[in-house]
């Protein structure tokens, strides 16, 4: 009697253990699929794109209706647009984060602001594009330009900056603030002299992430900044520019010789993900270093 009970228990324990092992394997596979997806995309871009990349490709303008030549105007355009977006979003984002983390008290105002930020983060990029077209390009008469594109991208990346800056401020220990206030500093002096310097490295990490997001964005600049093709490099912020992501789209879908320019498309895509993933890697490594030092 007791003998059989024991073997039965052992049997169920064995089965429970077995189902745990089986499920854990399944979960591990799910995680591996994700990593695999990332590596497959990178692998194919490198495999088909590395031959296209040489000095000429990076430093020349496209020629022969974009079937030959390089992508210099696109690289420059993307740099202008994403840096411009940061000039817009960085101060705004940090100021919002300072209010949220240092000043705001629980209540209706805070909930409204949070609601706004969450929803802004969820607005589709093509809707940002429409908005930029209606407000900056048409209503403010800035035209299709670096300025319009940067403002649109700046608004688009604002939630990213707010989120990371807030997290950075939250990580500053309260003892810092108390020490400063205890020495007679005002709230603003405390924020400016103590809290912000302590949070700055992490805030910058967020800035890099937002920069990479802006660099890879396509739909938001389609109607606001990017142009199909232009021979000259931009000379003012009211000029239209070519941009890497838009260039990939144009070559892959609307070029004159889609098959013939395949290597250029791969090359451009490779340059773009090198930029974007590179910035992300820098941010990730820098952040983990900051966390370790804390």
């Amino acid at each position, binding site marked *: 009697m007791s003998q059989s009970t024991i073997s039965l228990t052992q049997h169920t324990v064995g089965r*429970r253990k077995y189902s745990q092992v089986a499920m854990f394997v399944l979960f591990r596979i799910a995680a591996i699929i994700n990593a695999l997806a990332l590596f497959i995309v990178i692998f194919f871009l490198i495999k088909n794109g590395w031959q296209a990349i040489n000095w000429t490709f990076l430093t020349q303008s496209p020629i022969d209706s974009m079937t030959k030549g390089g992508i210099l105007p696109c690289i420059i355009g993307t740099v202008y647009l994403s840096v411009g977006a940061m000039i817009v979003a960085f101060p705004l984002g940090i100021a919002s984060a300072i209010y949220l983390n240092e000043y705001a008290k629980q209540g209706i105002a805070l909930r409204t602001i949070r609601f706004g930020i969450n929803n802004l983060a*969820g607005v589709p990029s093509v809707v940002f594009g429409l908005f930029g077209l209606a407000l900056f390009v048409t209503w403010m008469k800035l035209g299709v330009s670096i300025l319009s594109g940067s403002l649109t991208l700046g608004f688009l990346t604002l939630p990213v900056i707010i989120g990371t800056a807030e997290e950075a401020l939250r990580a500053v220990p309260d003892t810092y603030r108390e020490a400063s206030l205890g020495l007679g500093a005002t709230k603003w002096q405390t924020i400016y002299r103590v809290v912000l310097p302590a949070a700055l490295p992490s805030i910058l990490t967020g800035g890099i992430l937002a920069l990479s997001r802006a660099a890879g964005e396509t739909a938001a600049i389609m109607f606001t900044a990017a142009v199909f093709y232009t021979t000259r490099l931009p000379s003012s912020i009211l000029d239209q520019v070519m941009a890497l992501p838009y260039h990939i789209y144009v070559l892959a879908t609307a070029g004159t010789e889609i098959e013939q320019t395949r290597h250029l498309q791969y090359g451009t895509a490779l340059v773009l993900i090198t930029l974007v993933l590179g910035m992300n890697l820098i941010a990730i490594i820098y952040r983990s270093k900051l966390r370790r030092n804390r």
Partner: protein
Amino acid sequence: MEDRRQLKDTLIRYIFFLFAFVSIAILCMILFFLVREGVPIFEKVSVKDFFLGKYWYPTSDPPDFGIFPLIIASLLVTLCSASVAIPLGIMTAIYLAEIASTRVKEIAKPLVELLASLPSVVIGFFGMVIVAPFLQDAFDIPTGLNLFNASLMLAFMSVPTICTISEDAITSVPIELKEASLALGATHWESIVRVVIPASLSGLSTAVILGMSRAIGETMVVLMVAGGAAMLPSSIFDPVRPMPASIAAEMGEAPFRGDHYYALFATGMVLFIFTLFFNFIADYISNKHRQVGAATL
């Protein structure tokens, strides 16, 4: 002296308060401009015909502005991608939060972040030149640019969103709950299914909704991969034209402030309302069922 310092401090406080409202202001401006540029279409087409019209031929004469096929396409790609992304995202989150060792986590979490940072145009390009020909051969179908391909690509764009938010939700489950379950003799797996997942359910739902919201608004992938036919699909291998694809593809050619232009803005308005709705639900769930310690279970 002291007074001036205090005055300055109060002033600065108000300035920051104004800055914090910028996000709300932008959101309102987006809505305002979408309405301003979108509503004039309803002078030409009735609201019912616009939403339920089965034909989207904006450039033919007379033009048809029925976005029903576009809405259905958007919903279908979102649902199909969700059916891949939800299990994949949540399982990865559970793996990262519960199963993986610290060393594996240190590598795996950045990988998820990198997946999230891949530009959508690159994923669209990948779907177009690598996945589409593969599908065409594998399933012997006329075109690889279709609903299935687009859903698959979108899934990998929403997995990181679902995964990161789910992981936060799972890690924030109080450790005592899990310890209690383990102490009662449950295996690790049983504790995950019976205790950890139920306790983090509201966070997981938020993750799923935000992931789907990301998928429905994603533009470049559906523009390049979905095939672009503004028809009601009859199989998962039919090409479709979701709302963002239509806007992005046609805005360049639509005459300024013409009917087509207004119709595209109105489509943008619908898209905006869809994502707003998703966010409302996510916001509601995460506020309503906020986990405050073990007591609220």
